């Protein structure tokens, strides 16, 4: 393959991704419990209201969640230099929940934005702790990193459950842990745009993240400001995690599965990759939400559950089949 054809392949994937996303958004707008009444050839007032208050926000929320979490996943993988980590498997999500739980417990009337900030700070500390742990692990044992992450997250998670149990707040945890879009209405999801903005911001530092993924020596040799990149990455991942936990609830595996699929076909050069990672994240989460709406119509299954099932399967397949390819 020549560089030129690699380039046109990238362009073709961007185009395919955009088409598929638009198509799914269209489907998402017209699938749901309430039928959209038609007046002649055009939607009537009532339908427009459903569309603007419920369907459009719900669709946007699913896409924003999927995209930003996929981006958070790949950034974390580059910073840790390990394919098998994401916020949900390294204690970051649990730390965000811990912050959120404590603030809900101690100051229940705190405005949502402030709660999100506290959850983000808590997530930042949790992720920082994991990075310190991961640094001590031998790079020759890549599977040790996610294992330690799971244990670390498990410990924080156990603390969260203990506090929630004592305070009789377990039902909150259930909401934060299972990503679900049925409750999304205009006015209750807009914080997610901030997560989307963080993902866009990350694109401007795409080269820096890719270089950080080459390792510390390569980074220093190329004159990369390692601390700055680390800080930006930490900020992006913890903000996105906190925002998603606060508004939608955790959607497991997105940050793990999506970057791994994309990496498989396109590699890890973030400059070319990031739009695909974000697009595919949005597509898969939105598709999960749509499937959740139709399989047991008129009841709904949370998108997080659907994605969990498919995500785990895809991930196993990725783990077990190595790519065979020659040019």
């Amino acid at each position: 393959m020549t560089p030129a054809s690699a380039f046109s392949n990238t362009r073709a994937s961007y185009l395919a991704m955009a088409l598929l996303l638009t198509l799914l958004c269209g489907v998402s707008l017209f699938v749901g419990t309430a039928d959209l009444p038609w007046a002649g050839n055009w939607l009537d007032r009532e339908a427009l209201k459903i569309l603007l208050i419920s369907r459009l926000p719900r669709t946007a929320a699913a896409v924003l969640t999927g995209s930003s979490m996929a981006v958070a996943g790949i950034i974390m993988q580059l910073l840790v230099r390990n394919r098998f980590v994401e916020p949900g498997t390294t204690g970051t999500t649990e730390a965000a929940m811990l912050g959120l739980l404590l603030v809900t417990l101690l100051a229940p009337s705190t405005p949502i934005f402030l709660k999100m900030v506290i959850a983000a700070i808590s997530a930042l500390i949790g992720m920082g702790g994991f990075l310190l742990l991961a640094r001590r692990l031998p790079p020759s044992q890549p599977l040790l990193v996610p294992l330690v992450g799971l244990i670390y997250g498990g410990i924080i998670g156990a603390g969260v459950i203990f506090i929630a149990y004592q305070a009789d707040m377990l039902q909150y945890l259930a909401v934060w842990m299972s990503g679900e879009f049925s409750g999304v209405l205009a006015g209750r999801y807009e914080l997610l745009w901030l997560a989307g903005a963080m993902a866009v911001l990350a694109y401007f530092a795409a080269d820096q993240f890719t270089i950080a993924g080459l390792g510390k020596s390569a980074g220093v040799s190329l004159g990369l400001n390692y601390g700055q990149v680390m800080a930006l990455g930490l900020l992006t991942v913890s903000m996105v995690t906190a925002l998603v936990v606060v508004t939608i609830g955790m959607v497991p595996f997105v940050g793990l599965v999506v970057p791994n699929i994309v990496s498989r076909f396109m590699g890890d050069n973030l400059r070319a990759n990031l739009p695909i990672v974000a697009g595919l994240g949005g597509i898969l989460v939105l598709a999960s939400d749509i499937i959740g709406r139709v399989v047991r119509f008129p009841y709904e299954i949370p998108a997080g559950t659907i994605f969990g099932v498919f995500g785990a399967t895809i991930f196993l397949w990725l783990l077990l089949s190595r790519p065979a390819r020659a040019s």
Partner: protein
Amino acid sequence: MISIRDVNHNIGSARILKDINLDIPRAGATAIIGPNGAGKSTLLNLVARLQPLQTGSISIDGQDVGKTPTAQIAKALAIVSQQNFVASRLRVRDLVGFGRWPHHRGRMGPEDHEAVDQALAAFDLLSFQSRFLDELSGGQQQRAFVAMGFAQGTDWLLLDEPLNNLDMFHARALMKRVHGVSRSGAAGGRQVLMVVHEINYVAAWADHVVALREGEVALQGAPEEILTSAALSGLYEMDIQVSEHQGRPLVLHHV
């Protein structure tokens, strides 16, 4: 010139480098030789600011390594480390392209693409340029990392055992290339400082030799002075014969 002044390096109570005072002249290609564990990589890493300096000072053509902004050093000096483990999947061309990052810090310009093309061609990588690194053999990967260092286009190039994993064809080609770039171009060519174990490559291609042993500079000078039977036998604590081939030393260490 790289000047190293009063450099000590300790890990715990182990003294890895002891009072190193050394000037690397702008002589073309300088080879560092010495037994395993002598401190060659440590010294190279200190010069390239990959490890923090504990005592003393190092300057590259007058720029103090400890005080000059790292982005500025990246335009004056490149290093290809002994161990290059990369977890992410990059295409060879993209990897080599990142060697140009210190110069553009954004999008590659035409001169960057040209430098990448040259580096790919120089290390016989054109036919693999669209492959992912993890789809290459060990020697091909090694060449890709060296090409990345070359593409960085710096006045100083530090190579830590660049011949690792290379077959004799590519090993000789690499040394020829190093020799070539240290002579061509403006301002007397680019300076190369490299750790090499294969002593006959040093004999054939190096302009200056520094020998380290147990954290100290044991010998330094022209290849003909250093690569003698007495000096090498002492350095490596083994019996080494040196003969001559086309006016250059030929070291017989394998029998």
